[in-house]
């Protein structure tokens, strides 16, 4: 039985914007689910409806077997980490973390113990008597995290908590959030537009676009078997290469070149051929010929951008082999890495 059950959830704002257009999602207890998508895809609205900060126009939300669709946030037993921290500026770090306990009527001594324990766990002890405005963004977000977790809520919700931090802090905080979540096994729903962050944290990624779920699956599945073109492009950096061509006589033809056998599921006609940069290799001979545009060295590997007659292709190659811009090169595609998409619907073909 699922711990969180979302059924037909919709949100239309006054003014007509349809932010969420019918979402069904089940979340297991202890699961870390990341809602991923570009801005305006409805992920934050979905999260806020889970919290009760926004009321759905249609649909239901069940939490731990209880219908909570129209309940106030206070009655849902949730923790929420806001993008811009949402710390009480007139309270010290310790007072901020203690506030949920104070509201719950936890006796002073127990309150102090639990706050101290929480601060210790997040390395915030030296900051206990400081005011939020004197802290760095990363430290403020850690305080917000401590405040959201101190009451041990049934469901922990996070709205782009790392959005305002610099790269180094992001990685550090992501690790901390994951470690805390694994230890406490608190069911967590986390919103982000950063696909790498989503991959790193999630048990399951829910990719959203246009107010709808595009795919809900493990990070590996989302990456390897994207449900459609949108997911294929949104997840992975650089994005998946895509070639438009025709299937004729069981072969995939693109710009006059024969790129090999097409899948049995593809009927004769237009299809899209998708392949990630790591499944493209460069050499003297191959399926397609082109000219090197840019050779991007990123330390562990290189991304080589090649212009071909049918479009630009990115290849991920070994760091040791530099490619001179302007050089003629042949591209080879690893058949195992190729994914096929319906040209009309964008859906992946089996």
């Amino acid at each position, binding site marked *: 039985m699922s711990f969180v059950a979302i059924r037909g959830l919709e949100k239309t704002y006054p003014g007509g914007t349809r932010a969420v257009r019918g979402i069904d999602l089940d979340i297991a207890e202890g699961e870390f689910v990341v809602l991923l998508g570009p801005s305006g895809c409805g992920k934050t609205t979905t999260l806020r409806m889970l919290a*009760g*900060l926004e009321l759905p126009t249609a649909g239901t939300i069940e939490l731990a077997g209880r219908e909570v669709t129209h309940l*106030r946030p*206070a009655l849902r037993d949730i923790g929420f980490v*806001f993008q811009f921290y*949402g710390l009480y500026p*007139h309270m010290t770090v310790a007072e901020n973390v203690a506030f949920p306990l104070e*509201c719950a009527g936890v006796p002073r001594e127990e309150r102090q113990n639990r706050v101290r324990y929480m601060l210790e766990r997040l390395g915030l002890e030296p900051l206990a008597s400081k005011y939020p405005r004197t802290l760095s963004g990363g430290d403020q977000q850690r305080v917000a995290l401590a*405040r959201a977790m101190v009451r041990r809520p049934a469901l922990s919700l996070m709205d782009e908590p790392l959005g305002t931090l610099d790269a180094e802090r992001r990685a550090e905080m992501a690790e901390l959030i994951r470690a805390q979540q694994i230890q406490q096994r608190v069911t967590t729903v986390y919103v982000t537009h950063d696909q790498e962050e989503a991959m790193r944290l999630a048990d399951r990624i829910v990719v959203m676009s246009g107010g709808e779920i595009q795919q809900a699956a493990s990070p590996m599945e989302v990456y390897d078997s994207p449900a459609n073109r949108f997911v294929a492009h949104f997840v992975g950096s650089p994005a998946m290469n895509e070639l438009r061509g025709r299937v004729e006589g069981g072969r995939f033809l693109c710009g006059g070149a024969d790129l090999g056998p097409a899948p049995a599921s593809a009927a004769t006609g237009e299809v899209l051929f998708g392949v990630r940069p790591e499944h493209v290799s460069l050499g003297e001979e191959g399926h397609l010929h082109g000219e090197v545009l840019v050779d991007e060295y990123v330390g562990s590997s290189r991304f080589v951008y090649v212009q071909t007659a049918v479009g630009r292709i990115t290849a991920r190659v070994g760091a040791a082999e530099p490619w001179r811009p302007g050089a003629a090169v042949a591209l080879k595609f690893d058949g195992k890495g190729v994914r096929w998409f319906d040209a009309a619907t964008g859906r992946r073909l089996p």
Partner: protein
Amino acid sequence: MERSRGGLGRFAFVGPTLVLLIAFNLFPLLYNVVLSFTNAELVGDGWKWIGGRNYERVFTDARFGAAVRRTAWFVFCAVGLELGIGFATALALQAFTRVRAVLVTALLIPMMLSPAVMGLFWNLILNGNHGITNQTLDALSLPQPQWLTDREWKLFSVILIDVWMWTPFLMLISMAGLAAIPKTLYEAAEVDRASRWTVFRRVTLPLVAPYLGLAVLLRFTDALKQFDLVMATQGPNDTSTQTLSTLLYQVTFRDGKVGLGSAYACVILVLVIALATVFTRYLETIQRRTA
């Protein structure tokens, strides 16, 4: 060369203000201190040093003690009511998102009128016989106090007019303070399961406090100088409404005792500065906690 020109250039900017400040603030202040040690009078120009005798008279004058207590009571009641009603109105207005702009404009009108004119209007409104207040009370068969002539009611009436005039100011500042509280904090408090009362006591109040403090400070220093309403409704020499400012006016310009009046002025000045300093310090500590 460069330096002296810089100095001259700077003086060109600051100079005029400096000259005006010295001519119209510093000189009169010092001259007032000098006069307070003389027996100068409004009529005639002969005066001589009489040492601290004016100050002796100030502190032994029963009118002075009474005026201090009355002014303190006036400030306490007027500013207290203005704060309470103004803040409550601002809170209530939060509920009216649509018509708020219209309501606020209407509520701000009293604040924009001249106090002297207000005093005269209220003279008519509160007039014991043909004022609209008592006519209304009469129609409702309720007792009709002599608002402006009964010793028991006079000061209350002046407080009432001041409250009517200045409550909108407190309301305005309260609204600014309330608007400055980020919405996220209310959402956070809701998630943290704070009751409405807890939200008010632990989030709203501490975060508006610096704004309220500033508004009260401004009203406080202003109310200490209460002059126009009393003058317009009662005149300077009414024993049950005389404030420090009207007493000062009475002594200096009606009685013509400039020397004694100057001594009063000096004492009042020291008093006001002392109170304002204490208050400002307090305000700074609140602001340091939240800003």
